[in-house]
């Protein structure tokens, strides 16, 4: 190495050190950095349900209403609303003077056009949510009237979710072009608290405060989403204050315990009324699992406390409400058949069901499928393998890459047991219904892949979805839950809690109950 080179590199090193250390010493309250695991492929939750897209889009766009910290509807674009007693007409009044980030006035026509021409056609959950909506009338620029074909109580809260109900600008998307090809998907223009500034794929997304935001806030000048693919590094970056907040869907579960010991970091649980459960779909069409007694027996053979503790790092609660998570408000009940860990009972039931052990002690074998990218499932599979070995059932591990898993399980139905995280909420009519009713036996992701079909359960879900009286709805759903817990088309493993972590100096993060809410009220304290 020449002397010159040596001098230059030494100089560079010194310069680097000089820049680095003091840069961290002062904390910059004008900016907030959120860690993400990957790029949102586009920023338009009207056409995609990708969570990264909703997390970023929620800062740029708005929904008609939002949910307050208790989960009650609160004003967002709409300042007030009214639901007719027959449940067939919803009238929304919007704030005056709302402007899109490009200066164009926002009107009720944006709402009607966006929901019916984009969200309903291109976004799966929105398609279901808006199915009952026949028309959206716009008598004036500040009023939108939803006309429903039949009562659909989940509609109001559903409109608060960014991943189905983001309102897009008509003047930009109504140009005859396919909305998924619109350049605004990568340069969004919204009505939300932050304006899009720049997106560098694989690196970051930069947003800036929108001075004309029609509600309070935002309280930081710049909001940055930084892409950190590596889980361990994401936690380290938070500890070193390179980033300030890790949302629930990218939280490295294995790091939670260590982060909890750091005083500068707050670990909280994201309230999520979509109420996710880790659960296994059972293929009830063929093989031993077609037999209800076998499904029950193996549910008894399962030590779910161990699964939760070892595979789920304890972040949850062993499911005791059958198809409804204990996080699901109102409808959840533990008054259903319970399946405590009881291998002796399981053995006896399997004997009685006509599956005796062979010479080697084995009864039969089952395939267990899951997506390798779905956090704890790999460990669940390993633990279950040894638990089921106790009762003479062999498990064949079929962990696979996410797309392949969805394809073989939900489209080809080529599985015995397939597991992952699925939402029982935010309302059973949106969440749970898709898994258990006969008409949802469709070759599609997140539908009734177990092939379970029970006319009584269908009738109860149908009643619950139409009924306006909350007491009667609850009754219908609780009856359905009791039948399902008896028939076990699924094994409900545990109700998920969603840890999040952020700098303790940040305030207001836990107010959101959706998991991808607007950060307009988050502020730095001190």
């Amino acid at each position, binding site marked *: *190495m020449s002397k010159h080179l040596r001098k230059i590199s030494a100089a560079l090193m010194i310069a680097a050190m000089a820049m680095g250390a003091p840069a961290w010493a002062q904390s910059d309250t004008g900016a907030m950095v959120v860690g993400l695991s990957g790029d949102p492929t586009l920023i338009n939750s009207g056409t995609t349900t990708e969570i990264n897209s909703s997390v970023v889009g929620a800062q740029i766009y708005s929904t008609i209403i939002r949910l307050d910290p208790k989960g009650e509807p609160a004003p967002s674009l709409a300042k007030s609303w009214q639901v007719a007693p027959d449940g067939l007409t919803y009238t929304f009044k919007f704030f005056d003077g709302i402007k899109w980030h490009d200066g164009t006035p926002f009107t009720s026509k944006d709402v009607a056009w966006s929901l019916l021409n984009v969200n309903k056609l291109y976004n799966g959950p929105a398609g279901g949510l808006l199915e009952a909506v026949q028309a959206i009338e716009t008598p004036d620029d500040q009023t939108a009237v939803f006309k429903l074909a039949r009562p659909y109580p989940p509609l109001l809260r559903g409109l608060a979710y960014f991943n189905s109900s983001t309102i897009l600008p008509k003047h930009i998307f109504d140009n005859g072009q396919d909305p998924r090809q619109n350049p605004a*998907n990568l340069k969004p223009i919204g009505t939300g608290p932050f304006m899009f500034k720049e997106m560098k794929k*694989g690196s970051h997304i930069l947003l800036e405060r929108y001075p004309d935001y029609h509600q309070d806030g935002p309280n930081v000048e710049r909001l940055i989403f930084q*892409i950190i693919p590596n889980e361990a*590094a994401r936690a380290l970056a938070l500890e070193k204050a390179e980033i300030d907040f890790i949302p629930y869907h990218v939280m490295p579960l294995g790091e939670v315990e260590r982060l909890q010991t750091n005083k500068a970091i707050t670990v909280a649980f994201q309230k999520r009324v979509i109420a996710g459960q880790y659960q296994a779909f059972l293929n009830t069409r063929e093989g031993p699992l077609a037999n209800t007694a076998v499904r029950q027996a193996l549910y008894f053979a399962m030590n779910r406390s161990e699964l939760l503790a070892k595979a789920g790092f304890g972040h949850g609660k062993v499911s005791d409400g059958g198809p409804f998570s204990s996080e699901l408000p109102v409808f959840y009940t533990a008054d259903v058949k319970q399946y405590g860990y009881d291998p002796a009972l399981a053995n006896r039931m399997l004997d009685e069901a006509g599956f005796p052990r062979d010479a080697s002690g084995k009864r039969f074998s089952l395939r267990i499928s899951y997506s390798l990218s779905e956090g704890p499932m790999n460990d669940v599979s390993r633990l279950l393998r040894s638990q089921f070995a106790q009762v003479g059932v062999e498990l064949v591990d079929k962990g696979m890459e996410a797309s392949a898993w969805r394809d073989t399980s939900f489209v080809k139905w080529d599985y015995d047991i397939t597991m992952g995280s699925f939402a029982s909420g935010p309302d059973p009519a949106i969440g749970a219904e898709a898994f258990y009713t006969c008409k949802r036996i469709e070759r599609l992701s997140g539908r009734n892949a177990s092939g379970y079909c029970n006319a009584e359960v269908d009738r109860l879900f149908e009643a619950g979805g139409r009924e306006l009286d909350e007491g009667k709805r609850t009754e219908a759903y609780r009856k359905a839950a009791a039948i399902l817990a008896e028939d076990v088309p699924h094994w409900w493993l545990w109700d998920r809690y969603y840890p999040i972590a952020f700098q303790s100096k940040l305030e207001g993060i836990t107010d959101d109950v959706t998991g991808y809410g607007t950060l307009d009220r988050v502020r730095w304290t001190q």
Partner: protein
Amino acid sequence: MSLILYLLKRLLYTLPLMAGAIAIIFFLIHAAPGDPVDYLIGEAGASQEVVDRLRAQMGLDRPVIVQFGIYAFEVLRGNLGYSVVSGAPVLTLILERFPATLLLMATQYTLAAIIGITLGVVSARRPNSATDNVITFFSLASFAIPVFWLGQMMILIFGYYLDWFPIQGMTNLRKGYTGFAYVLDVAYHLTLPALTLAIYNVGLVLRLTRSSVIQVTGQDYIKVARAKGLSERTVLFKHALRNALLPVVTVIGVEIPGLIAGAVLAETVFGWPGLGRLTLDAINARDYPLLMGMFLFICLFVILANLVVDLLYAALDPRIRYS
């Protein structure tokens, strides 16, 4: 003249090579289960009509062979297509990310070559001496350590505990530097990932240089050089090394595809916004046009890199003439 002819011939050979690569890769990735529609509609699912409509719009309802014909035709017209997930042109997506990867690869490979060749020569000077043994141990270890593990250890030690370097990314986003401060900031962020990859690659270059130099130092012209009274340094670096470098350059060229694989891992560990991460995301989303574009780009890059290596031979060894 003959050099230009040679170049033309080499470039001509690349055409069937590329065509073959395109065909094989196309059928392989379409044979993998899952498709982009699955990814687009997500966990919540969508109705059969929506799925059918999406599939038809992407042309996925047609037989694979027809899809291939359409794709090949478009590529010949110079159109790599649009990402089915983001709708952005594939070429733009790739070129946007290439500079970051190129910066990382060039830096680390230059570092690896300089360190590897220097240590290799030092090592070869007195084979089996204490110095040689220490260097040998280091080189074998560096070659055996997986990049992702080494990367995480570097982050833990130099980023987390010692607090000398940043942990993630290419720039300090909170500060948003511009101008010269930005350049310094990038260099600062580059240090750990480049060092990690360099350490990994040093082993190979070092071992090759060492054995090759040992072989060469037995030759008569080295004895002559020593007999002339040249310093040991001149003998080793001017006379021995130049002849010993040929096999090293060959291997460096052959290793370039491996470099890209290494870059994927390092980019993931350090959050470096390069091509590696783009490829991984494209695979997960089954973004066929983007994936095809990436593979085409990598093929072309490897072919060109090998061409450059061939040309380097001539520069290093006047006996080699391309005709």
